[in-house]
């Protein structure tokens, strides 16, 4: 009798204490409307001279991980291997800077789609969720209607298309339709679409689904330019837009109050040379009031229940089958490895 009373009082005190601690009401907690974050990061270029595209996507991957999105919520697609490429003078590293400031490849990286698996078909299947049943969890985008999804694409593009691995291309119409499929199947709450290619604006011009915020590194008719060459590698190391975006993101901490409005102003024309284009008409909220961590970081919202729940003792009884049941009458033997007469 006493125990449930104590329980109740404890709960009440705890709830009151917590309420005073946080200083926020439950409404504020759920203001943004999303409960989990996903990221789909795609690099579509192959070959050593496209080193910068791999560095681009790994920079964003690094920022996402640092700000809290776990590997299980990130789908990373890298079309070629730069870090362990025989041409890389510093194996297992991908730097975004010729001065080797940040190893964006890092020590804890999980690539979900690598090499030949990065195709238009796989990308659309990941977005829409129409994957074969044997696909493992780490390769699936298991988002729901409360997920904020960050989609980042980089590679070679043109007016209305993005080239995948020098062999195929995805058009802006296909991409818009894929997002519409996601919307109709309630696979996202809000999407932030970032693209760093030549004529990148054309890729988001055909979007028609709600709640999509898009930014591109160049307008139609302009080329996105790369930042600088690393003489020891011999190729361009990173693209301009992503370089300045990474610089901005490095100053962000998980508790930061920086807004998406500030992020959309990153890389003005004198730094990027191309004009950064953005699309905010489909997005319902005001970008200057949206936190950057709504898309790049990971929100773990906790719902407080004022009443207590009784849990059954879920530990199994000692399972009836002991290992003694497996005892065989005859001793087991190892298989003969070389089945031919010696």
């Amino acid at each position, binding site marked *: 009798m006493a125990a449930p009373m104590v329980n109740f009082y404890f709960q009440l005190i705890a709830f009151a204490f917590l309420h005073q601690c946080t200083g926020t009401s439950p409404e504020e907690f759920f203001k943004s409307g999303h409960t989990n974050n996903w990221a789909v990061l795609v690099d579509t270029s192959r070959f050593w001279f496209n080193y910068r595209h791999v560095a681009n996507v790994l920079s964003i991957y690094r920022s996402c991980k640092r700000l809290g999105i776990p590997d299980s919520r990130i789908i990373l697609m890298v079309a070629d291997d730069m870090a362990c490429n025989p041409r890389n003078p510093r194996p297992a590293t991908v730097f975004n800077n010729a001065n080797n400031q940040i190893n964006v490849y890092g020590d804890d990286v999980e690539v979900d789609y690598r090499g030949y698996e990065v195709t238009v078909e796989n990308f659309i299947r990941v977005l829409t969720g129409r994957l074969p049943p044997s696909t493992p969890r780490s390769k699936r985008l298991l988002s729901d209607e409360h997920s904020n999804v960050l989609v980042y694409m980089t590679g070679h593009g043109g007016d209305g298309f993005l080239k995948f691995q020098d062999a195929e291309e995805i058009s802006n119409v296909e991409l818009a339709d894929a997002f519409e499929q996601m919307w109709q199947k309630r696979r996202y709450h809000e999407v932030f679409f970032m693209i760093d290619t030549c004529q990148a604006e054309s890729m988001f011009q055909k979007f028609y689904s709600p709640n999509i915020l898009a930014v591109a590194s160049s307008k139609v008719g302009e080329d996105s330019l790369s930042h600088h060459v690393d003489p020891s590698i011999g190729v361009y190391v990173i693209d301009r837009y992503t370089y300045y975006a990474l610089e901005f993101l490095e100053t962000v901490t998980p508790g930061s109050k920086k807004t998406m409005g500030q992020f959309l102003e990153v890389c003005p024309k004198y730094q990027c040379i191309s004009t950064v284009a953005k699309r905010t008409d489909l997005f319902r909220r005001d970008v200057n009031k949206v936190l950057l961590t709504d898309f790049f970081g990971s929100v773990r919202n906790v719902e407080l229940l004022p009443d207590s729940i009784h849990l059954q003792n879920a530990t199994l009884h000692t399972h009836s089958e002991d290992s003694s049941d497996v005892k065989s009458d005859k001793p087991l033997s190892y*298989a003969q490895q070389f089945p031919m007469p010696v």
Partner: protein
Amino acid sequence: MFHFQFTTVWNVSIDKPESFQHYHLFPKSLGDVLTTYKVKELHLSQTQGLWKHEKWGYPPEDAPPGDELWVWFQPHSGVDQTWADLVNALSGLFCASLNFMDSKSTVQPRWSFRPAGLASEFYSANSRFVRYSTLPREVVCTENLTPWKKLLPCGSKIGLASLLNSVKIYDGFYHSLGVHVRSVCQDTQCLTPATELKQTLTVVYDPTTNKNGKQDWSFQSMFDRTLQSQCPLADTRKIYVDVTTQETLPKFSLSPVPDFVLNQKRSGEERKIAVYQIGNHLSPSSLNLKAMYEEKLTFSNSSLPPVYANRFVTGYGLERGGVTCMIYNTMSSNTTVIFMETVPWFLRVYFSSLRIENDGKEIKPYKINFIPAKDRANPYQMELVFRLFANSVTKITYSFERAFLKWTEYPPDANHGFYVSSAVVSTVLPVASQYTATSQSVSLLEESFSDSSSSFFLRLHTETLLVSLPTPDFSMPYNVICLACTVVAIAFGSLHNLTTRDFTASDPSKRKGLVAKLKSFFKKEKESPENKPDSKEEEIPSQKDKDNSKSEEKDSKKKDGNSET
């Protein structure tokens, strides 16, 4: 060479999935995959680099370049579907493109890959439940090391795994990750099976690089880290160093001094192993194992291993070719060998051209298992059992014809070529010379130091081959469109102009300047109602004028013609 081995033995039987419930040291992610897909034994290796048998002897686990996966399943129906699902699940678990191991590259080896653990004779003789596949093209990088490290009970933060610095490991000549799951005996009576998970990492460095020939090495120089802790969950935490040559050339000394030195005695080979118990060396500071050599590196003739092999492509052109494999036997006794090859379907092997020769004499194999390929479905599978004579070289040759692939079947970098997986040579050695693998009945390295058996099972992998297929010019459509459109524009356009335009002559004498043109323009407007009577009058003029005008027309036509072109 550094060889890391992390062995976990769990006293449950893999044959009973219900017993795989309370996970403690065995990783749950791997255990779930094993029980869901009814796996009895699993062997996965991910390697980059080629192991040079002639120079380095035999590794503890031999692995081909790329990824190799062979699995024995519990007896059930529909093994093909289970294999397809398993490779997908493993590709997610190990961040490798194992999902490309489909029926086009999977074989069922009949004699070469018998179970490495406990299995009944009836079961292991049946190759229905085994699947073998390789991906020679696969790259191994930190993204494969990360999930491998996450399977370890202590993770990568403490213990020996904390030495694994990816930047240094991938800088070596050869590195190989391995995951091996099999059934072993729980005790000496062996009435109940246990499941053993062995995770191995073999790395080969050259310590003399950048050091001007000095071959000193230490943990700090090889891994950029020292050993600062030991895993409290492990029963045995040891480091073994081979000091057989410590007193002879090259002389070296170890620091700190090893705890004791064991003698490893196996038939034909005696080695001295220095043993370190990690716990004794962690205080006061971390363990930085150092070997200091007195002299610089000198090259000398090392003894060749008993059996080794080389394989290469022969022929020229893009129509035909051949493959030759040379197997060397440096022992003074004959030995039987099983040679297994998997050739992709697009290299059409002529079985009639298969020859095994020893010093010019043809050798007839005892047994042949040859399963021809089915286009786009199965690869060629070849297993040969024959005798290797003492101190000789045996040459296996066959020729093939290259097939045309459909243009959608080429990979995005089609001009790189196509890989052929390594051949597998299995044999039993009577002497353990340069043999470092653990024997079948034990789990730990130390347990196989005093091995009284006289037969040592050896598995070798040869090089992979890179073959070019007749590749279409993928820039052709773009070039053809440009060329065709240019031709059409010039030729057809000109013809069209010539045939559809109406040519009128202009009198060169009537050519006027600008002012006169303006005047005539205003004049035309005035004279328009009077045109008809004027034209009639113009028709009457004398023939001379007509002739003149005709000749003028011809001249003007010519001139017009010139201006056209």
